């Protein structure tokens, strides 16, 4: 799959969100997209998924089956989890049983009879993830999939990503918590200033700085830093 000179803006007089972006995605590759909030990560993912079309340039050779999980799963819908997944399975022309099987794998079987509106954030993320995998995707796009997930799914997700990639699928994950840092062979893209920089597969060189704050401010500062795309680590 290839992006050639892709530019995008949401309105004719609006600012360019992405400008003259050229990228190549090999089948079977895993890409982690990082960047500050508002840098255009989600827009890049939507262009890749084919949800929006570039204003200029082109996207070619996109695999026919695309799985997409949004950053925040929309729980404001009048369905149970099972009914919702059945609808999405029919839209993808696969058996509703695939939803049940995925729910079991992700430890979400007990959620199937629950209304979407009653789900916690983590459970809703899981439903978003399950619907993206209903048909084996040739391109899997996950927008901040790790946010709010429980430990079990957090551990399961890299495994699922690995399976899609080893089946020849391409996986693109935006993630400002950098959860895929230890994923073997993952490429890294940095979105900033309306362009995308390929960090060439090699480890990004990192520096560690200590920031000393009052205990009561610690959570807030950590959240701010993470929102800006930095990796943080608490020391005792």
């Amino acid at each position, binding site marked *: 799959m290839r992006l050639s000179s892709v530019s995008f803006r949401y309105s004719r007089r609006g600012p360019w969100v992405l400008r003259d972006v050229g990228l190549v995605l090999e089948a079977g590759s895993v890409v982690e997209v990082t960047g500050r909030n508002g840098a255009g990560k989600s827009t890049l993912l939507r262009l890749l998924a084919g949800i929006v079309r570039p204003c200029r340039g082109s996207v070619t050779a996109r695999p026919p089956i695309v799985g997409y999980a949004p950053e925040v799963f929309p729980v404001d819908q009048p369905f149970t989890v099972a009914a919702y997944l059945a609808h999405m399975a*029919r*839209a993808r022309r696969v058996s509703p049983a695939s939803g049940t099987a995925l729910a079991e794998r992700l430890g979400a079987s007990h959620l199937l009879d629950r209304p979407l509106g009653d789900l916690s954030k983590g459970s809703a993320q899981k439903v978003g993830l399950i619907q993206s995998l209903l048909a084996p995707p040739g391109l899997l796009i996950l927008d901040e999939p790790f946010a709010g997930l429980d430990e079990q799914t957090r551990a399961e997700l890299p495994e699922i990503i690995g399976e899609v990639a080893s089946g020849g699928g391409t996986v693109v994950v935006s993630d400002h918590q950098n959860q895929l840092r230890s994923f073997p062979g993952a490429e890294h893209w940095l979105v900033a200033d309306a362009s995308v920089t390929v960090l060439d597969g090699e480890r990004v060189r990192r520096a560690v700085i200590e920031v000393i704050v009052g205990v009561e401010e610690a959570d807030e500062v950590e959240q701010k830093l993470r929102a800006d795309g930095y990796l943080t680590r608490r020391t005792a």
Partner: protein
Amino acid sequence: MIHHTALIRFKLAAYARSHRLLQPVIGLFVMMVIFYSTLVPPGKELPSYADSAGLLIIVFAWAARGLLDTEPPAQRLISATSAGSPRREVAAGLLAALAVNLGLAAIAVVLPLLHGFAVTPPAGDVARGAGLHLLGLSAGTALGALTSRPILSSPAASMLTLFGGYLALLLASLTPAGAFTVPVMPWMRAANAGTLDEILLPVTAATLFWSATGAAVYARLRRTRP
């Protein structure tokens, strides 16, 4: 087309389970009570149908807008990828809105036959009435789509455009250039004068042209407004 039906059914199911369907249904029945609280005398059935088709445009627009707004924005993105392309999601939305409006129009055509017309009109007039309702629902569906959330995100702007747009439509059709707009007033007048058949073809062509144009503009705008 066949494989879009899953997404159309999904949208209809969500709409039916939300409270939004109630609003145009109540609107429709209020209009029906106003139209048919006194019996329509024999021979006046077609003018009555013509008025109903023209006035219900606002109800059809309201229903289309409600249906398209039922789906949360992030779900539209999921639906677009599930259906294989955003064009299919847009098409499924428009077709689901048409389906709802066909149901509402069927009520508006059948109800006066049960109660409202003093005598049952000839089949030809019922067919003409049904045809005018089809024109009304296509114009209404396009207007509703153009005022839905992806196009006009502010509810106030959307409501103003919906009602203002309908009013503008009626006023424009009153002017000498009325035949080139959505000719609501011309079809009401012609039905009253008994000359509907003479203008039925251009009226149909003009209405379908503007409805298709509205739907095309909606689909074009949705390309950057997922």
